[in-house]
């Protein structure tokens, strides 16, 4: 039904919202860290990418679940 699709869409939006907050915090912390200690940039970047990938993975779990509903 259309209402299920609407609910799935809202769910996808909520998932994106949560992931965006998390990714923003990761990126902010990484930028701050690199600004304070530029020589640690490579290590910070790799750690940031791993954390970002985990958050993104959670968001994609939500997206797949919403997609199954559609």
């Amino acid at each position, binding site marked *: *039904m259309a209402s299920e*699709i609407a609910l799935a869409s809202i769910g996808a939006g909520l998932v994106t919202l949560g992931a965006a907050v998390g990714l923003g915090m990761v990126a902010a912390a990484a930028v701050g860290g690199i600004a304070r200690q530029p020589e640690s940039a490579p290590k910070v970047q*790799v750690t940031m*990418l791993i954390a970002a*990938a985990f958050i*993104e*993975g959670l968001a*994609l*779990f939500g*997206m797949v679940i919403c997609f199954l509903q559609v």
Partner: protein
Amino acid sequence: MRPSASRGAVDAHSAGLPEAWLSPGRRSGILPPFRTVVNAATNMTSVAGKGEALREYIIEHVMYRTTHIDQWNIPFRHLAFLDVFRSDTVMLWTAVAVLLGLALLARRRMGDVPAGMANLVESLVAFVRDHIAVPSLGPADGRRMASLFCSFFFFIATVNLLGLIPIFSTATGNVNVTAGLATITFGFMVVGAMVRHGPIGFIRGLIPRDAPLLVKPLLLPIELISLLSKTFALTIRLFANMMAGHIVIFSLLGLVVIVGWYALPVVALVVALFFFEIFVCLFQAYIFTLLSAVFIGQTYHPQH
């Protein structure tokens, strides 16, 4: 996913979508070409009906692609031999062929001073070895297992990038393919660590050594589930990233079908997204390789 007939599709029935396409048994049947769907969607009066037709089409496109007849082909003409590239198996073998060709090409130019293509391949291999394998596995293991991670990186990147070519299917957008790739990582995480440390050592390595004695039996099932969930996360991350890109591009193009030529500027946005997809393809190959290396390193060298 339920067939749309039971969902009470808006006005899809009345407005010209072929009956065979909407019946519950259509998964096994022959699906109409894309232009039929576009015509049907264009003929529909309500925006909801057009959206319904497009949504059905996108789901068919990304999830049941091998059942389609006459739609992934060159414009205005049907070349039957191009249809085989709709199969993910064929795409995997195509990627193997491309990689073998690349390897032979690079090998020929690999003298004392690498030239041409060999430079590119060598820099990528050195990047995977020095920035992915060695930091997460240590110098000795990292150098020895660099070939595995190079295989992961090059294979996934090639499959992803080939999938961007319109006629080809994106094999990594199929959850079975990514599950197979993640199973290789899982095998190294479990079997490799068991070979190195023995089954008892593998179990002991899972549990943190300084945990309180009472908590240790609780930690074991958690860590075992964590092994599985890491593999599952690897699977879903790659699959969903690849699939999501196709859905987004298709949805934006679908605006043209729904709204008409007012929405034509969206094509520029699609072109921009396509370049972003190229970045995503390489980045996901990198992330899959990096996380595999980190996970394998965790079970190979526990307690550090």
